[in-house]
């Protein structure tokens, strides 16, 4: 009884001891805040890292192939058994992407993924990260007119048509200009084939126009007068289109070979106003640039929009790899907010990519692939499945790289976890320093209370009892400090965004810049387990710090203590 009474009285009358506990409070609060914010960041980062990576993948080496994918899938299904949720085949290869921006050719390296639009979304979190509202719901490689409003002021078919129309006007205007000066190439013959064809047919050059158009009447804004052909009957090379698109010729109205060829059905002709090339989805950061306005605001500039055409160039497979090039129409963007992914990934339909890269087996007509991506049931052990697959495809016989998504991102994940560990150690050191503060304070209190200890002993209090006065004093101080620290930490975490805003407002320096971190606010996760551990650790340190003074109090000789003045 006297122990509780006395430690309570000491607690109430010695506020300086509370000051020594403030460092415990601050340490505990900091630990909770740091752990919660780090947990939030790691969780966000993991879900983003995991986003496009499947749980486990079997990958052929870069530019390599997995032959007989159906057979492989069968084996994989058999090996994994019940843990398997879904799997998909992917062709992955580096590629060059080029697009036209304000008349300039921009070329960038991308990682091109040929994906199966049926199964890819079931294996990875692909669809939620698309920018188009429509594609998020129902994924396809078709260009939609709607759904891009969230990201772009315009995009889709209307934008595509407008841009083609614009370019057509400019092209025609340039053609007019060309006509004025280069009359011999007056736009009647465009291709070598035509010319040679024409020569074979004994065609003679058309007479030169006798009168040049009036220079002053031509403006780029006005559509140039169309003297020989109408846009509908023309099939054009759209600027930026390469050799991969539908092969079209520009025909002269005086084409003498026309009657020998089968008549061209305008419905089957490629019309960029109505048709799209192979759909492609680009990582948002590929075509995005951040620019700063003079006011210091960040602004995104998009060089490509949905509806624009781009060209991708990549090597074919096999021994005699050669570059091939393909026209694609951007149908959407992929924005996972992981810059690493957003700046490098581009997605194409699997079958198209297999065709173009020559991955079709002529005998079975089955396309080879480069990666099998596997999604497992939520509670499956990734490493165990990976080991099973490695046992099935041993590295002695296969060139495959079999890894979990964590293996793929191991450097980053282990760096983050090491960072967290070190931070925890450092912060616990802070609490340990606080522990030494408690030790010193308690020692002083024991010295101050020497006479009281002597009195208690003279009145028959056992050493154990005297010791427990100071131990319970330490425990109660530690608990008070820890409790206050937990409360403070939780409050801080709860209102961390408001606090960041407030500090930003006062200092004029934005603490948390969403454009840098890609988070709209600071993510936090409070783990009760972590709080319990931090609390117990802090109380333990306080108790340990009070053990030494308490022992000293217990060992005091009553006569010596009473003589103490």
């Amino acid at each position, binding site marked *: 009884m*006297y122990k509780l009474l006395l430690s309570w009285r000491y607690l109430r009358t010695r506020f300086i001891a509370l000051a020594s506990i403030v460092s415990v409070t601050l340490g505990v609060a900091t630990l909770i805040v740091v752990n919660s914010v780090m947990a939030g960041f790691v969780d966000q980062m993991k879900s983003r890292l995991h986003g496009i990576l499947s749980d486990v993948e079997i990958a052929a080496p870069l530019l390599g192939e997995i032959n007989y994918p159906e057979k492989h899938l069968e084996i994989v299904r058999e090996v994994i058994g019940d843990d398997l949720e879904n799997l998909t085949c992917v062709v992955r290869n580096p590629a060059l992407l080029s697009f036209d921006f304000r008349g300039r050719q921009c070329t960038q390296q991308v990682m091109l993924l040929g994906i199966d639009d049926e199964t890819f979304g079931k294996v990875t979190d692909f669809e939620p990260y698309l920018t188009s509202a429509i594609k998020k719901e129902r994924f396809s490689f078709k260009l939609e007119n709607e759904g891009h409003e969230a990201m772009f002021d315009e995009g889709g078919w209307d934008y595509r048509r407008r841009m083609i129309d614009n370019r057509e006007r400019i092209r025609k205007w340039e053609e007019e200009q060309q006509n004025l000066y280069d009359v011999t190439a007056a736009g009647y013959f465009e291709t070598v084939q035509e010319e040679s064809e024409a020569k074979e047919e004994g065609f003679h050059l058309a007479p030169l126009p006798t009168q040049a158009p009036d220079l002053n009447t031509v403006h780029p804004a006005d559509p140039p007068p169309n003297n020989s052909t109408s846009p509908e009957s023309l099939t054009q090379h759209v600027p930026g289109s390469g050799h991969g698109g539908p092969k079209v010729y520009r025909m002269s109205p005086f084409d003498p070979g026309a009657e020998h060829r089968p008549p061209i059905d305008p419905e089957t002709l490629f019309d960029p106003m109505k048709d799209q090339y192979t759909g492609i989805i680009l990582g948002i950061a590929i075509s995005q640039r951040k620019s700063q306005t003079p006011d210091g605001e960040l602004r995104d500039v998009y060089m490509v929009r949905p509806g624009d055409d781009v060209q991708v160039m990549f090597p074919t497979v096999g021994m005699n790899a050669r570059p091939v090039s393909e026209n694609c129409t951007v149908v959407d963007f992929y924005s996972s907010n992981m810059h690493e992914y957003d700046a490098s990934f581009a997605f194409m339909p699997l079958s198209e990519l297999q065709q173009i890269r020559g991955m079709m087996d002529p005998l079975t007509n089955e396309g080879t692939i480069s990666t099998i991506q596997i999604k497992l049931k939520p509670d499956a052990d990734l490493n165990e499945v990976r080991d099973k697959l490695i046992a099935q495809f041993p590295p002695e016989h296969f060139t495959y790289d079999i890894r979990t998504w964590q293996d793929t991102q191991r450097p980053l994940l282990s760096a983050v976890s090491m960072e967290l560990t070190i931070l925890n150690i450092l912060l616990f050191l802070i609490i340990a320093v606080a522990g030494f503060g408690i030790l010193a304070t308690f020692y002083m209190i024991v010295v101050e209370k020497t006479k009281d200890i002597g*009195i*208690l002993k*003279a*009145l028959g209090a056992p050493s154990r009892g005297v010791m427990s006065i100071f131990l319970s004093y330490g425990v109660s101080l530690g608990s008070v400090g820890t409790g206050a620290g937990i409360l403070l930490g939780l409050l801080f975490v709860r209102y961390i965004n408001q606090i960041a805003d407030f500090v930003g407002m006062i200092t004029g320096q934005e603490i948390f810049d969403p454009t840098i971190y890609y988070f709209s606010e600071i993510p936090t996760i409070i783990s009760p387990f972590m709080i319990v551990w931090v609390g117990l650790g802090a109380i333990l340190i306080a108790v340990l710090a009070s053990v030494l003074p308490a022992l000293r109090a217990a060992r005091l000789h009553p*006569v010596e203590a009473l003589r103490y003045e």
Partner: protein
Amino acid sequence: MSDVARKRTIKFDQSRKQKSGRGPNLKIAGQTAMTVKDLYKSYYKGKHEVPVLKGVSLSVQSGDFTAIVGQSGSGKSTLLHLLGTLDAPDSGEIHFEGSRIDSMSARQKERLRNREFGMIFQFYHLLPELTTIENVLVPKMVQDGFFKYLANKRKYKKRATELLEMVGLSHRLKHKPNQLSGGEMQRTAIARSLVSDPKILLADEPTGNLDSQNGREVMDTLDALRKHENLTVVMVTHDDRLAEKADRVIRLENGKVA
């Protein structure tokens, strides 16, 4: 104040004598309460041995007021500490009611100090954080566990209040020691020493820190209580005038009984 205080001091509860479990009949006068045989005790200052008690033998009779008188440095305080088991002798024996107490275990000594001995010190030795009544109750708190104390709290408080009334401090129950005068503090200490109904009271210069007026009051209180509670009292003092009141005076000189 002294007259008022004295009047209050005299106001005893007469019924207590009968109620008390151990009345005067149990303490047959002349029976030996405490015997000391050939006690030696030295202190060490560095390597130098300073002998304080050099073979002290004495006995204390039950119900007696024994005064141990000596010059300062004669070892009388040390002797009292040894009697109160606060310290252990180098050699010699101390017997209390027939059993040897100097060789007891720490636990037994604690029990003895808590229940059988009451102690009063020159510097009062009250706990500054506790009120008067709490200070009086400390031996009871030490004696009982948490729940037992709570169960008996009412009884203990009644007894403590009674004792404080006897020493004339019923109006000071909720005061902290720093709000009390020296005499009041010593009287609180006397009440504390009596709260667990001890058999023997060991007083170490109880008036040594008080002026003569307050000292006399304290001595009167002590004397009245002694008679009322039928206590055996051993008092250490250097003041021969105080010793005059004692039934028996033992003079200590140079570490030996003179």
